[in-house]
């Protein structure tokens, strides 16, 4: 992504969503939006202004019926439109899971390529210690990754959000875009004007020599903070933002590990079965000889999420836990003073 000096704007993650939608709706009149409360601007304000600009033939309110929403998007995509359906919280993918994993993901293949399904499903995702609890606080990218046929995008910053969502809308295949709800307020400077970031290319956020830290969505910032602390300890950490799980840019991670020989993965979701495991197993299978130590995963606790803040803190993926994981990989024991229970290990 190039930056031009002359026109930059402050953009929030929330508005990045809206701007990407507007950008693509202007570019391509086949792009339409549907979902609950989207006409009035959406409960996270990510569709604000779209009805005014594009009218009621492009912006469609729906009843509460996620199956019908996902199905309508699928059918319209097959018939040549480019629907973007909001699923308000990604936890609610569970209420239309059949449409997502059994219909949208499979129909192109099972018809021998007779149909193409260019659609985007998008909505708020993730834990972020906001008190949303078990039914509104999940990081659900993994659910999707168990099923081939769906692209998975989970951006880490406002500019990333704008460019990756635009690419998702332009993509000819079904893409799920996960918007971390704790990032909606995040702001950064972005070039004014159209922005598209290709899917399937990881981003090196920060170069380093001693260890590779891989994050996605909110854990990219977690890794950056960990890297800053490690710097102070004389440890140079490279931070990679995976950006998309499918297509997976494993190559970028393999190349980094070939230089650093150490890998720590930070994933917000429960570790029982997370994308970090997939990445770890790929790196181990394909670059075993390069590894000076085992890849270590820092994952969310293997529990539904609690609400009280001390409990949330207990299960969260934090820079502290990433720092400790790096120390473990490097064979440095953590100073006992800061030792706290490590949920992933206990659990």
């Amino acid at each position, binding site marked *: 992504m190039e930056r031009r000096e002359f026109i930059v704007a402050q953009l929030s993650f929330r508005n990045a969503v809206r701007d990407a939608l507007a950008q693509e709706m202007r570019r391509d009149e086949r792009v339409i939006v549907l979902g*609950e*409360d989207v*006409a*009035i601007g959406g*409960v996270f304000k990510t569709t604000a202004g779209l009805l005014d600009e594009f009218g009621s033939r492009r912006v469609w*309110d*729906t*009843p*509460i*019926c*996620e*199956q019908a929403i996902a199905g309508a998007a699928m059918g319209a995509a097959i018939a040549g439109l480019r629907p973007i359906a909001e699923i308000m919280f990604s*936890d*609610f993918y*569970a*209420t239309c899971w059949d449409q997502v994993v059994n219909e949208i993901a499979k129909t192109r293949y099972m018809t021998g390529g007779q149909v193409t399904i260019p659609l985007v499903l998008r909505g708020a995702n993730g834990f972020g210690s*906001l*008190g*949303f*609890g*078990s*039914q*509104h606080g999940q990081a659900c990218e993994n659910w999707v990754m168990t099923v081939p046929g769906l692209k998975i995008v989970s951006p880490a910053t406002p500019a990333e959000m704008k460019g990756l969502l635009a690419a998702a809308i332009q993509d000819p295949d079904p893409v799920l875009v996960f918007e971390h709800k704790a990032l909606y307020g995040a702001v950064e400077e972005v070039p004014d004007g159209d922005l598209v970031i290709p899917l399937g290319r990881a981003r090196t956020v920060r170069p380093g020599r001693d260890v590779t830290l891989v994050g996605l969505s909110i854990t990219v910032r977690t890794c950056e903070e960990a890297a800053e602390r490690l710097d102070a300890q004389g440890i140079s950490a490279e931070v990679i933002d995976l950006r998309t799980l499918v297509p997976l840019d494993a190559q970028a991670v393999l190349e980094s590990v070939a230089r650093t020989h150490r890998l720590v993965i930070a994933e917000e979701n429960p570790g*029982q079965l997370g994308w970090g495991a997939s990445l770890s197993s790929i790196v181990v299978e394909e670059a075993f000889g390069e590894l000076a130590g085992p890849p270590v995963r820092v994952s969310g*606790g*293997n*529990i*539904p999420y*609690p*609400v*009280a*803040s*001390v*409990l*949330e*803190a*207990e*299960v969260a993926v934090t820079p502290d836990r990433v720092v400790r994981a790096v120390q473990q990989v490097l064979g440095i024991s953590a100073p006992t003073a800061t030792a706290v*229970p490590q*949920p992933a290990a*206990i*659990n």
Partner: protein
Amino acid sequence: MTQETVATRRFVEGEGLNVELFQRLVFTRRFLEKVDTLYRQGRVRGPAHLGLGQEAIAVGVGSLLRPGDRSIGTYRGHAHALARGASPESMLRELLGREGGICAGKGGSMHITSVEHGYYGSYAIVGAHLTIANGLAWADQIQRNDAVTVCFFGDGTVNIGAFHEAVTLAAVWKLPVVFVCENNQYMEYTPISAMIPTARPAADKAAAYGMTSIVVDGNDLTEVRRVIGAAIEDARCGRGPALVEADTYRLKGHSAADAGKYRPAEEVERWRARDPLLVYREQLIAAELLDDSAADQMWTDARDELNALTEVVLKAPPPDASGAWTDLWSDGSSSWRN
């Protein structure tokens, strides 16, 4: 199999007006207002959905349920928990993230539950709990208990698949369950009238399930008790499930974070005039069971009681962090590896 050891169930015999019920309306209203205030002070963890203006339904149905009966509701469930006798203090502890929360700090506002009082929980994914309500009622049917399950949900919920499946199965199996739709006229920000194919979200669907269309003024506690009471008795006597639509209105936004500006001022005013507390108060006063000063005293008392309770709770410590790792499995642990 539920143990009937709790004396605090809130069943009220008889059909007549009852000052005690007004007191419950007042306390419930004060409780919700208190949560609203605490939310605006930044003290409540997570979102908080209040049933301000809808209290007559929760209080009315609560008074119809006997010990052993079961109820279940949504994220907008504070009133429904209180209506069965759940502890306001434990609820405040939950909402404010203190030790001793009613869900041990793991539920928060959207998941208030008090099984010990027959309130089987607040569920935050639209529609799902209707299917769970069936299961509670089914267990009673199989075990030949004469208990009834009441399930509360909103107008927006009638469009989701889980609603349809649940009401269908209840009808086919003739379960002792009463589905109560609190039609507060809105989904989140969208008026329900724009998102249904007929005039009434629930009542117009009853016939599709072989049920009678039942509508009740949900802001009139007396009517709530009469109409839903009859449905509950039918279910109790094995005459099968019911689907009731109770007309009401939420006086504030969808959640405490929502100012509700999408609602026409005139509409809000019209419904304010039909505030369920005003309606019942007038009925009691007309029947000379209550006078203004006694009513005002109840307002003051409830406020004072909740202020005092809040002060105690705010002084309490947070729960122990280790609690994050308990109670996933019934052995109390959460470990997934051997």
